[in-house]
Structure formats: structure tokens, C-alpha cells
């Protein structure tokens, strides 16, 4: 991983190798507005091939799937200083950069404008861009999501915020039928470049209705892309990628991760929506996780390393479609899989992932796939009960030990 970063430093240092024009991103027919800063990205395995490919893919955009840190809390790239910020600020930075770049991007949601966003993701944007681009909506999720989709049909790029992901259940019809399926049922006439984002997941005793994990409900909607961010670095990159994507993207944030501090690069970067992130390479077992559970896993990994295990941790990031390439390579290496998720056991992301791995990599498995998920109960209010609902590091350690017997 450090090697990859060194290569990155090398690339940026030798401009004659890479024509800066070729780093243009956003290859849609729309002309680029705004800056074309130097964007450098490196493939997760250190290859810098992407743009040398002469295939139909333009190859200009290479995306970085490498976590900028190991399981330690902060360590920036060896060469560039970067700047430190919290996850919600990273989201805001990504949003702001995209709004600067493209005047078609607008934000809609409850209390996103004058109030600054209930999690401060949109703070300051209303004063900068005005009421027409940062829109405070009434509490009417079904209709303002529908309006966002209608606006997207004409070419605007709205970012719809659900104050809590659970509220978007009220807009399920719009998200499923109009957002996901309109591109197909219109024979390709309408693109829906909308981003639907919001915090979800189990928080600190927020109660059942405010602790929902909607990724399991949305995962079978065709035409939708789903990503979950987990660090400030990937939050900003995924936000930018989601806004630039021509497809409808649901970006799942987590209530408890907003205040994560991290150092991110100063340069502009965009991540690939469909790629998973290798958090910690290893040999013994593949642990697949996303969002907040990544941190529980990393905590468990500390214990596991002390006990002599070498787990490989992958943050799958892309919940739909799964990055079975990265995951598959990992399974072929370790032959054991543990999925740690915050979804409910029934019908969650883990169950689909399990099915996908079994379908594709059965011959490489040495043990049944284990899946740790939340209990199939409404999230209780009491702190102790809530703790037992969600997967804890101790359970992860026990599961790995069992898998590796």
C-alpha cells in the first residue's frame, strides 16, 4: 500500500509521463465547467494501467481504492500534506466542489438550507449558492423525492437528502418506480442523475424508527446504485462520484461516523462507485464489511492480530453492484469469508453477498461463509439491549476463531 502511494507521488511529480489533460473527469456530453485541477489516482493494487488502455473506456479516470490509512487512525500520504477534517466536512467539501463545478447540481432536503443541515453537511451552502440551489423543503419526502426525480429527468442533478434514511421509506414508490426504473421503461430516453443521501444505521439509543438500515430494502431495485461511505476520504470521493454519475445513486452515510477525523489530500479526487476498498491485506480470512461495522472489525482485528491471525479486511463500499472482482480475488487467496454487517439478518446485504459468493466462488471456499448481522428485531431504546442488537468486536473475534479452526 505504501508502495502504491509512492507511485502516486511519483506520478504527480513527473508531469511528462501523464498528460494533465487526460485526467479530465466527467466524460459526459456536457462540457466541463469549472476547474480541471490535477487529479491523480492509483489503482488498488498499485497498477497505474487504467489510462494506458486503448479500450472503449476512456481510461482517463483512474480511481483510488486504497485506504489512505492502515488500521491506525491518521497517517497521510508520505509526500503530500493534505488537510484534516471531519467526515461531515468532507461530504460538504465534495458537495461544494461539485456545486462549483456544475451549476446543475442542487440540494433538496429538510432543513438543509437556512438551518445548515441536521448533521451540518450542508452548512454554509445556502448562503453561498442561494435558495434556488439549496432548497429547504417541507416535510414531504414522497413529493420532494418525486420532484427531484422529475427535475433529474430534464437534466438537473439534484442531491436529495433524507434527514434520516428511514424517512425515505415514505418515498419508496418514487425511488423504486420512477428513480430506478424510468431509464429502462423509457427505452433509455431519460437519465436520472440524482443522488439520494442521508444518514442511517443504528445510532446511540435513537429508537427503532430512527435506526433503520434501508440498504436491505433498496437493494433489489433495478437501475439503482448504492454505495456506503465509511471514512472522510471515501465519503468525499463517493459523494463526488455519485453526483457525476448518470445513474441514480443512493449514498448511505452513518449517524455515528460523522465526526470521524481524517487527513485527506488537497488535490481533487473522485472514487469509483463500483469498487471495494482493501483496508488491510491478509492471508487467513476475508472479512467483508461496510460503513460503521468497518470500525468494529478493525477493533476486532487488533485483538486477532495479537492472537496470531492475519485477516484481510475489505470495505465493500459498493452495495449494489458488488465488487466481486476484489472480493473474488480475496476469496481465492484466503478461502474463508466472514461478512460483518449492520443490516438485519433477514434479507440484508450480507445474505445477498453470501449468495453471490457461493454462486461464483464455491470451489474456493474451505469453510461455510459466516455472516454476522444485526438481530431481526426493532432496535430497542435501552443501551444494553441496543448493544446486543448490533455486532460487537468480541463476536467478530469469536467468529474468526471459529472459521479458522
Amino acid at each position, binding site marked *: 500500500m505504501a508502495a502504491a502511494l509512492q507511485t502516486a507521488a511519483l506520478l504527480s511529480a513527473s508531469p511528462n509521463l501523464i498528460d494533465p489533460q487526460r485526467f479530465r473527469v466527467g466524460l459526459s456530453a456536457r462540457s466541463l465547467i469549472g476547474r480541471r485541477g490535477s487529479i491523480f489516482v492509483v489503482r488498488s493494487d498499485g497498477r497505474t494501467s487504467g489510462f494506458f488502455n486503448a479500450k472503449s473506456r476512456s481510461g482517463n479516470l483512474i480511481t483510488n481504492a486504497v485506504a489512505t490509512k492502515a488500521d491506525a487512525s491518521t497517517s497521510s500520504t508520505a509526500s503530500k500534506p493534505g488537510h484534516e477534517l471531519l467526515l461531515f466536512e468532507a461530504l460538504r467539501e465534495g458537495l461544494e466542489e461539485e456545486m462549483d463545478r456544475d451549476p446543475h447540481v*442542487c440540494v433538496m432536503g429538510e432543513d438543509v438550507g437556512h438551518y445548515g443541515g441536521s448533521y451540518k453537511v450542508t452548512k454554509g451552502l445556502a448562503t453561498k449558492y442561494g435558495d434556488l440551489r439549496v432548497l429547504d423543503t417541507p416535510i414531504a419526502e414522497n413529493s420532494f423525492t418525486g420532484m427531484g*426525480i422529475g427535475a433529474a429527468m430534464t437534466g438537473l442533478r439534484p442531491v436529495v437528502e433524507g434527514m434520516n434514511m428511514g424517512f425515505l421509506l415514505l418515498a419508496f414508490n418514487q425511488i423504486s418506480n*420512477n428513480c430506478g426504473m424510468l431509464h429502462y421503461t423509457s*427505452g433509455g430516453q431519460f437519465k436520472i442523475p440524482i443522488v439520494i443521501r442521508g444518514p442511517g444505521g443504528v445510532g446511540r439509543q435513537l429508537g427503532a424508527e430512527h435506526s433503520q438500515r434501508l440498504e436491505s430494502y433498496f437493494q433489489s431495485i433495478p437501475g439503482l446504485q448504492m454505495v456506503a461511505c465509511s471514512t472522510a476520504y471515501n465519503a468525499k470521493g463517493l459523494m463526488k462520484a455519485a453526483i457525476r454519475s448518470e445513474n441514480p445513486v443512493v449514498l448511505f452515510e452513518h449517524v455515528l461516523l460523522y465526526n470521524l477525523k481524517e487527513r485527506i489530500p488537497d488535490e481533487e479526487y473522485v472514487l469509483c462507485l463500483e469498487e471495494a476498498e482493501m483496508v488491510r491485506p491478509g492471508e487467513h480470512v476475508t472479512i467483508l464489511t461496510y460503513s460503521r461495522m468497518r470500525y468494529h472489525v478493525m477493533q476486532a482485528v487488533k485483538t486477532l492480530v495479537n492472537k496470531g491471525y492475519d485477516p484481510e479486511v475489505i470495505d465493500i463500499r459498493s452495495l449494489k453492484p458488488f*465488487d466481486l472482482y476484489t472480493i473474488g480475488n480475496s476469496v481465492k487467496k484466503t478461502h474463508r469469508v466472514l461478512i460483518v454487517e449492520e443490516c438485519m439478518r433477514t434479507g440484508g446485504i450480507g445474505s445477498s453477498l453470501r449468495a453471490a459468493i457461493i454462486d461464483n466462488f464455491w470451489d474456493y471456499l474451505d469453510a461455510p461463509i459466516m455472516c454476522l448481522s444485526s438481530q431481526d428485531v426493532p432496535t430497542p431504546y435501552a443501551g444494553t439491549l441496543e448493544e446486543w442488537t448490533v455486532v460487537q468486536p468480541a463476536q467478530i473475534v469469536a467468529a474468526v476463531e471459529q472459521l479458522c479452526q
Partner: protein
Amino acid sequence: MAAAARRLSAASLPLRHHHLLLRPFASSASGQPPIAVETSVPFTGHKIEPPSRLVDTTPSELLSFFRDMSMMRRMEIAADSLYKSKLIRGFCHLYDGQEAVAIGLEAAITKKDAIITAYRDHCIFLARGGSLVESYAELMGRRSGCSKGKGGSMHFYKKDSGFFGGHGIVGAQVPLGCGLAFAQKYTKEGTVSFALYGDGAANQGQLFEALNISALWDLPVILVCENNHYGMGTAEWRAAKSPAYYKRGDYVPGLKVDGMDVLAVKQACKFAKEYALQNGPIILEMDTYRYHGHSMSDPGSTYRTRDEITGVRQERDPIERIRKLILSNEVATASELKDIEKEVRKEVDDAIAQAKESPMPDPSELFTNVYAKGLGAEVFGADRKEVKAVLP
């Protein structure tokens, strides 16, 4: 002119004799003298001054109304028989009887204005410039259909002329329509959006949510309730406590229009467009009627009497109304009109024949258009090495 106008303003005329004419110049189709016609009934306004009953039209416009409405009528009836011979499957909601709304609306606006409607969309697609062949091919699921055969009856779209569909879920198109208006306001286009819905959808909550937001943000959207008095099998008085749909907007003004009179529809839509560009949303209620049942699986006679249907057909049929106008204004003779109808019939038959020849979609089309291409990245299937779906 004023004296003539006074002559015209007899308020209580029986429906059949509502056409009184003003012909200031000798008529000749090439000279295009304007004809002023009074609408069948005056407009009723809610919190707004209704427009005048007097509508200007020209002989060629009347002829085009006649032709287009006959085309729509013929198209829907032909679709009926195609459905019965199992060439069209699934749901098929027919628009015959309501043609005046589609034609009158189109006459008042440009192709830059947006229209969005629910599933009774065949004729609006035609009015927006869609072709008969595309329509029939889509209905029969062929690849040359307007949505490549993948949408079906309820998913007709024509992006280049501002027709946004074509939606199956009742009421869901209204927030979309308000979103279209939002985009028009955002890009300062000076155009409006018409969101059409039925009397059944008028009871949907998302409608009022969207109306609230549109009124708050002054969006140039016009909500048009095509009130055909039946939400599938439920009469309006059984579904709505207040069936005065034009008043339901409360703080949003409304206009009630005779939806079987194409000139009234044209006048109201023109008025509404001017209003919406200045002041924000307005509701139009079109009092119209459908001759067929809700869809092809509904006979349409279990919840209403045949007498009612034939009664409306005799008294208020939009095509007959225009025919009488044309004949009494001597714009064309009866046999010329018959010729037009024959022509239309032939056109429709030809289109059906052509659509029948058209091939079914290729199996690979199953996977196209699920995602739009984004960022130059390819979307892979289960294993990245094996590309399951090659994006166009």
C-alpha cells in the same frame, strides 16, 4: 363586434345549440379569417377571475382539430380490437371520449412546455408528435416502439418534444411534474409544465404535498385534473368528500373547464400558462368522460348505465361538436369530413400493419438501459472478468 358579442352572451342555452358564430369576413380557407366561438359553458373560477368564453379559432385550426381527434379516436378503437385479438397484452387504458383535452392542451402550448400524465397516455403521446407506428409497436411490445418495447402501454415517452410519460402508479407523476416545473424555473426557460392526473388520483396525498411545495416556490406548474367522474369503478362522489377538484387546491386558484369542448380547453390552458409563468401553480379541472371502461379488463358498464354513456356520446362528444362547428361555418362539407375520416382510418390501419411486421426486441435488450453509462466506468455483472451487460 360589441353588438354581436352582446348577442352571443345568452347565458342559458341548451347544450346542443351553443355554437353561435361571428363571421366578420367572408370565409375562405386560405384567407384564414378568425372565427370566434363561444364555449359550451362559461368557466368557473376558484379564487381567480375566469377567462372569457369567447375563443378565437381559424378554419384550418378547426380542421386540424377534427383530423387529430378523429385520429385519436380511431387509434384507440383499433387498439381495442388489437387487445381483444391478444396482440396487446397487460394493461391498456383507452382515451376515447377525452380527446378534446389532449388536443386543446396541445393547441395552447409549445413543444418546449412539458406534459406529464398517468397511464392513459396514448393520445397525449400522439398529440406531442409521436407517430402511430411507434405507438402501436410499443403496445405490441416491438423493438421499434417508442420505449423499445420495454415500457408498454403505460410508459410512452417522447423526450424531444417534452412528453415525460407515461406512469403506472396513480398520482406519482404529480411530484415529478412539479419537479419538471422546478427545473424549468431553475434554468429560467420561461416554459411551464402540465401535470395531468385523474379524479381518482386527486385524493393522493403526494399531490397536496407537491402542490404545497410548488406554491411555496412559485413553480410554473399547472395541475390538470382530467375528471372523467370514475376512478376505475368508483364514482367520484363515493371517493371524494369534495368532488370539486378545482377547489381542492385551497390557496391555489382553480378553473373548471368543459373538457369535451376543445376550444374551451385551449382557452383555459392558454390562460393557465400565462398565469403560471407569473404567479405559480394553478389547477384546471377538465370535466370529461371516457367511453371505454377504465382499462380493457373493465367492461365499464357495471358501475354506470349504458344510457349514461350513449347520452354523453350524443350530447357532448368532442368530435361531433367540431364537426357541427365546421359544417355550420362552412369550413368544409360533410363529404370532405367523411373523406378525412376515411383517410385517418387508412393511416391507422397502415400503421398497425407496419407495427405488426416490426420484430420483437433482441434478447440482449433485456440488460440494456438498466443503468446509464457514468464516468466512463463499465458496470459489471457478478464477476468482473465476465461482462454480463455491455452498456451502450
